[in-house]
């Protein structure tokens, strides 16, 4: 399900999803549902039109341009400061008044024609309604995908505080050189054209620059925790994460060389821990997969702690010789799994590379074991 959805969105396909069983819809649906669906139809139409306006989805772009210009002019009128008395400024204000009227009237006119058309036209079929519903949900999905929020990832208090702090400085700087009116107008212009094709294309181009990514992900960089250097830290984190597993010696398929040690220590239960380290890579344009990653995101090697947050760590091979406290490697070497592919924000895509995939990870797994009695005897000593 999710994959097909994503594909649709990625190509901005036409919003006509296929309903295979369309022919007998009316017979199959219960009347209560049909009634409430038909009542919903005007609401859906209005919603759809709103979304079209926001997303600039119709081909009549001049229409949206008109709207933006009208918006600017009317804002110019509504936030008038009446400082200048020149004929030109008065003229502009008058035009602003007219465009305010025109904007309001066009909205009212739309609502009226909508209700009138619904009365006079023939009622919609259930297929129409469902196509409309699907279109709306897809459009809402696009709205979400394209919005800044999905990239910023404001989730914790810390990030909010950091963002507020940074933007306060920008605000102060802006306010010292720009009037309130211009500030509001430019902000609203930005909002209204944000989802147009041109802006989105430009944003995508900008997104290719590493500097801009670093700026946008400033917060993430602040949130980044200290990397894990020693095996001790690694083990303690993994211990918290995995439920402590005590295994009977007899259950273990332990290499024979260790059997000797265990027998020597006269224990029948040992603590076994599975160390998992992720190796991360990113796809770079034209070059292929490299271990080079952005400074704000996870490093070349990372682990997940109990709260599923990512912590950087050293390469697995560097942990080889930090054994302490009776911990011994159970496996001979790190077992390396296949690559798993993610999109640019480390959301899982699948096990195969595709156009959507920009990052990939693979698991390094090695088990480690602690001889219990050894530990105790040391304590006793």
């Amino acid at each position, binding site marked *: 399900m999710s994959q097909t959805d994503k594909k649709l969105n990625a190509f901005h396909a036409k919003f006509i999803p296929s309903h295979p069983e369309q022919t007998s819809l009316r017979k199959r649906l219960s009347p209560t549902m049909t009634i409430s669906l038909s*009542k919903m139809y005007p609401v859906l139409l*209005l919603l759809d039109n709103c979304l079209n306006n926001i997303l600039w989805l119709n081909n009549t772009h001049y229409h949206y341009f008109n709207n933006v210009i009208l918006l600017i002019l009317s804002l110019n009128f509504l936030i008038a400061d009446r400082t200048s008395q020149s004929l030109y400024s008065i003229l502009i204000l008058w035009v602003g008044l007219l465009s305010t*009227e025109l904007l309001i009237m066009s909205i009212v006119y739309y609502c009226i024609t909508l209700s009138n058309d619904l009365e006079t036209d023939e009622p919609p079929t259930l297929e129409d309604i*469902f196509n409309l519903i699907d279109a*709306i949900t897809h459009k809402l999905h696009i709205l979400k995908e394209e919005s800044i929020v999905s990239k910023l990832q404001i989730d914790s208090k810390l990030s*909010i505080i950091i963002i507020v702090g940074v933007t306060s400085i920008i605000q102060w700087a802006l306010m010292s050189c720009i009037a*309130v009116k211009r500030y509001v107008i430019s902000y609203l212009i930005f909002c209204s054209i944000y989802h147009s094709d041109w802006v989105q294309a430009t944003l995508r181009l900008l997104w290719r620059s590493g500097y801009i990514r670093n700026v946008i992900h400033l917060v993430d960089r602040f949130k980044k925790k200290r990397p894990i250097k020693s095996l001790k830290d690694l083990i303690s984190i993994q211990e918290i994460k995995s439920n402590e597993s005590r295994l009977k010696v007899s259950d273990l398929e332990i290499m024979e060389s260790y059997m000797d040690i265990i027998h020597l220590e006269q224990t029948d239960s040992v603590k076994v821990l599975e160390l998992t380290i992720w190796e991360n890579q990113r796809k770079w344009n034209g070059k292929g997969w490299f271990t080079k990653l952005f400074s704000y995101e996870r490093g070349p090697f990372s682990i997940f702690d109990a709260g599923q947050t990512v912590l950087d760590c050293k390469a697995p091979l560097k942990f080889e010789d930090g054994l302490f406290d009776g911990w011994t490697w159970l496996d001979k070497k790190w077992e390396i799994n296949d690559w798993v592919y993610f999109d640019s924000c480390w959301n899982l895509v699948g096990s195969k590379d595709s156009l959507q995939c920009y990052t990939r990870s693979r698991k390094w797994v090695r088990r480690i074991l602690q001889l219990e009695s050894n530990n105790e005897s040391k304590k006793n000593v």
Partner: protein
Amino acid sequence: MGEQKGASVPTQEVRAQFIETNDTRLGGDSKLLFKDDSSPLLSCTPPNISKSLVLLYPYLIVLNEALSILTWTGENIWRSILLICVFLASVLYFNTIVKYFGHIIIISTLLGYSKMDSFVRNRIGNEPSLEDIIKVMDKVSIKFDLLLSPFYNFKEQDVLRLLFTMTVLSPLYFIITWLFLPPWKFVLVGGLFVLTYHSPWAKVTRRLLWKFKTVRLLVFYVTGLDLGGINKDEGILAVVHKQVKRLSAIDGKIIDNNGNDLHALSDKPIRFTYVLYENQRRWLGIGWKASMLSYERTPWTDEFLNEAPPPENFNLPEENAGMVWKWVDKSWRLDLTNDGAIELPSSKAKTTADPRNDDAFIYYDNTWKKPSVEDSYSKYTRRRRWVRTAELIKTASFNDSNTLKSTDKKEEEESNQELEPLSEKTAIGQDHVEYKDQDQIFKRKLDKTTTDDDISVSTSSEQNRETMGHSTEKLNISTGSTPPTPVEGVQGGPLQRQRSTQGEKLENWFKDVNVEDVNDNDKKEL
């Protein structure tokens, strides 16, 4: 989602073991799932459709919340009030807020959006039942209708007209905003009006204000839109106009269907009895005066209490498409029966052209209730009824059909003078059909002459309904509309049975007209 559940049901039923179904399920809120299984809706809904509904559901919840705030239908009215407060504050302190907290507003909208997004994701994860979704859909559509209800009174032309007047008057508005009312105040008032439009207080206030004529006039002059009660010819003439339209439409249909025979019928003029009510109020120390209180009905009204012009200024409406109105009666005649309220001896005339000052009034108390024929100390208002018949003639067929008719008419009019005292006879000759509306508010009488195919319609109002007697008694055909060959001695009853099919059709149509009129009227009142 749907398929999985559908598949899991039969296997358990086959086993017929009373195992806790929860154990066999993987993940999710098992209670909710179980409820789903028993839902008859789910079993009959194709899975792809329930999927798209489930995806829409969270947005519907958000929409529902927003609509209930805007339409003041939420359980908690304080949210709407809070919205108004926020709006007021943001308009009043716009500059300050933007200057110092602009970035915070932007961030909080982004935050709100992401909150909504996570809410949406949660809701989809919760797997709502189809019944829930339908319930929310119903709520949303009802609230949406409520929200858009003010628009339903307008038509497309109205908006264009409004736009036109606003454009023409925009220099005036501009000067006003420049000198007295700065735009932000305008926004404040406008926004407040929109936000509180559906609040109970605003509704009551609007209702009260609308009763004052000055307010209506003000609205008319500001917007250029006639929202009822301003245009002098609005009430009665609009009603007539509508009916004429209907009738002409009917004519056209008949011609189309049946050819020449009925074509001849449709050329006959349509008669319509215009009814005006003269209202008066008793002023202490002065006596009966036509001046009324500003919130109540005007001195002259039609049956629906719409304002109407006084008889001397009453002009017949102009019809397009080759139709012309012509008076049949010479002058307005006072209805002495006052809608059949007064039983007159048969020798007396039913109507008169030159009544005395206090003739044929029906007296009411201060609030136009408790009608009686007698004046007394508790009566403060009174009214009487004037009627005049007009006919609608097709000018296209005027020449060929009217040469004969005009001579007929002269004779008729002469005979009318003689017949006048005996107008009851004319009543007998005609077929009176009375209609009662389903809502029992208004009655309309359709007089159809079997010989002439003339149709004269008149209406009577609610107040007089109870006082009216038998249908044959309360004629309101004008004296001028005497058919050329009255069928004497035949009561209305038998003739009713002889009514042509066309008459029955007309009857139905008039019923429709009636209902519509009532609705229109109600709308205007609102």
